[in-house]
């Protein structure tokens, strides 16, 4: 007699776990993150570390208050991933408290208040980003111009501490992101024909730099190509499917294409949209967040398309230069509705859920 607890089938399991999924996503984020460290130096690393440590501490405190063991929860990697995504969306030389406050908010209000992993309605990283954008608009838009490589004049580690923790002035390095610059110039009545050359100066390599990532922007959002590569890895490893990312990119690119063809002086072209701001990060790492996106492929496509469209609308006509975070939150709110209406057809049933008609066979009937 083998004395074991009664067990239910299946008596086999795919070699996968929540922790493995999170680890894969973190690995896919690593190239863009390391590039951000290299581009912006130690302050970027400091900010990233503060965000992650704060998130882990907040998660541990919440789980502890709920009377559960903290270790398995921390090891599932979800808190680290949330903080990591938030850090990538921050200005690289932002003060430490911005990251700490954002991480704290993301885990406490964005996630644990709803009941922890899997229960939250809104993407915690985007909720925190929006909170910071509204509460600290100045700190959230102080971009750093990357040095001209390879002779980058990056701060030493000690100098980085004073930038991140000491509030050292960084005006000398400040500059605007493409989307921010365009928006500001529009408000001054300057159209794209004049504002874009002013930003890129005499070099016409603006978009090349944008793709590669050597430009002003958030810590980990500047390199569209590295983010794309990470996203493709996730698709290849079947952590995510293509539906939401492709739909989101389409949702931005299609209206941008139409509008820029109609009026090139007032609407940015699709390439500038696709390579700017947080779009690539959002398309592959945010709208693919399983917890807050719909659970069917068709639903995910609709979700991504909506997020893309809203992003383009906010970027084009909204008050903020970048609309990704707002668009994602709005679509998060629509997820339950999408899930209610978009369901797979059940075997043996019509789309309305009625049984398929029986076939009258030739014989005997």
């Amino acid at each position, binding site marked *: 007699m083998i004395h074991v607890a009664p067990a239910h*089938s299946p008596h086999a399991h*795919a070699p996968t*776990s*929540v922790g493995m999924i999170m680890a894969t996503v973190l690995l896919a984020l690593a190239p863009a993150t390391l590039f951000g460290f290299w581009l912006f130096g130690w302050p970027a690393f400091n900010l990233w570390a503060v965000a992650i440590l704060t998130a882990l501490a907040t998660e541990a405190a919440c789980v502890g208050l709920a009377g559960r063991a903290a270790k398995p929860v921390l090891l599932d990697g979800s808190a680290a991933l949330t903080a990591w995504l938030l850090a990538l969306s921050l200005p690289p030389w932002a003060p430490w408290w911005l990251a700490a406050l954002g991480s704290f908010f993301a885990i406490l209000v964005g996630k644990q208040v709803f009941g922890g992993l899997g229960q939250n309605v809104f993407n915690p990283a985007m909720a925190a980003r929006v909170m910071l954008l509204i509460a600290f608009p100045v700190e959230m838009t102080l971009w750093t111009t990357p040095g001209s490589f390879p002779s980058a004049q990056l701060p030493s580690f000690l100098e980085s501490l004073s930038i991140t923790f000491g509030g050292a002035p960084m005006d000398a390095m400040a500059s605007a992101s493409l989307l921010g610059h365009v928006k500001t110039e529009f408000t001054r009545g300057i159209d794209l024909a004049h504002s874009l050359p002013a930003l890129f100066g005499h070099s016409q390599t603006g978009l090349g730099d944008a793709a590669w990532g050597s430009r002003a922007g958030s810590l980990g959002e500047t390199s569209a190509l590295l983010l794309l590569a990470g996203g493709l890895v996730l698709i290849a490893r079947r952590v995510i499917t293509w539906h939401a990312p492709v739909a989101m990119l389409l949702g931005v690119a299609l209206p941008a294409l139409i509008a820029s063809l109609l009026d090139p002086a007032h609407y940015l072209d699709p390439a500038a949209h696709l390579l700017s701001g947080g779009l690539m990060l959002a398309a592959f790492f945010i709208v693919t967040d399983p917890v807050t996106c719909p659970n069917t492929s068709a639903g995910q496509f609709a979700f991504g398309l909506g997020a893309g469209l809203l992003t383009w609308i906010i970027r084009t006509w909204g008050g903020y230069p970048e609309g990704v975070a707002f668009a994602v939150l709005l679509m998060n709110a629509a997820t339950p509705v999408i899930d209610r209406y978009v369901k797979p057809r059940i075997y043996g049933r019509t789309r309305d859920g009625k049984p*398929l008609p*029986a076939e009258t066979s030739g*014989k005997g009937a």
Partner: protein
Amino acid sequence: MSFLSRFKFRGGVHPEGRKDLSADMPVRVPTLPECLFVSLQQHIGAPASPVIQVGDKVSKGQRIAASQGAVSAPVHAPTSGRIIAIGDYPAPHPSGLPVPTITIESDGEDRWMDIASPGDPFAFSAEEVAARVGAAGIVGLGGAAFPAAVKLNVSRRGGVTTLIMNGGECEPYLTCDDRLMRDRAPEVILGIRLISHAVGAREVLVGIEDNKPEAIAAMTAAAQGSEVKVLAVPAMYPMGSEKQLIQALTGKEVPAGGRAADIGMLVHNVGTAYAVAQSLNLGRPLVSRLVTVSGGAVAAPGNLEVLIGTPAQALFETCGGFKDTPARLVMGGPMMGQQFTNPLVPVIKGTSGVLALTAAEIGQPQPAPCIRCSTCVRACPVGLLPLEMAAHIRTGDLGGAVDLGLKDCIACGSCSYVCPAHIPLVHYFNYAKGDLAAKERAKLKQDATKKLAEERTARMERIAREREEAAKARAAKKAAQEAAKKAAAEAAAREKAEKEQSGKEQAEAL
């Protein structure tokens, strides 16, 4: 000539096959066990009823229990010997609860009963084929163990046009159907043609997963020149599920809540076809079957030709015993099979495999929270939302789960298999189905009780009314009687008076 099917079903998973453990080993026969434990409940439906007494001598193939009712199957002695007990014995079920079982002490001779040659099986009428299949105790050998004759009769009457033979064997580890098709393809094809004859099918398709090229080749060669068409289907769990195999072979779907016969189809397992050939060609009832003995804990996995009623322990011993401590014993495949805890439980007709799995093979750590990754949605071959259904069941909202399609769930376990949070999804669904069935039964019982109570009230009222009426009638009768008596008395008095009068008159006249 074999073809690749051009249809497919949605979802599905690719569990690690592990069929190489046993697929290439030739079929072995275990030494004859001292005792065989033949369960009376080996099939779906009513248990068989014993027709022998303790102490009786029986021959191999002799009927020892008769079919009871419309859905049932008889049971035959798997070897020659003496009946030493008719009573309870642990069943191959997670509960290990005992079921009525006939215990036969083997005489070591394994002597068949006298069998008259049945003659040309194709000369039998369709009804005769079904009757013989029923008498041979043949049930679905793919695991469901539904009495085969019942299915044949229903299908013939329902006008089945397509016979589909299930050679999918999509469960990991299991290779007994593979081995059967490789080694005994002519007999399997004969059985298929007999089933086709019995239901009057116009088209016969054999679906075999493309991870069994030898079986496909052997079956294709044996089917040469017959109406039987062998088709390769992609190796994908749950290909061996009736509904999914129909879809993969024909592109058609069985209507929800209906049967394969509703779309003119009948599905049988290849093992069943072999048993049919044995019974109609040789007159031999179903007393043995091929069983895969495998798993990481088994020293020498392989396929055994096993007498029904052989304890699982004897199978493991034939395969060299355990080389590792088994963490779990499973009857059937790992995806849908049932755990058993007592190694003495016997093989029954539906036993396709006996597995001894190590802890590493099972791999079911503690469940984590659902992250709504919808891997289960993609894996579900039916098109359900397992994560949503489980969420409803967790909160006790079974009705909500039914609205999401709980009753369409085929319990294949694909969702549980792929869930990264290791949530036992299919366990939730089976629990909910069981609970709903219990509620359904309770409701039926309640309705019946209510009906009885109402009938009783009506009856009591009627009785009371009848009593009242009877009392009234009696009273009326009494009154009438009294009135009559009174009248009679008056009449008598009048008569008397008249008599007296006339007497006086007479006296006066005198």
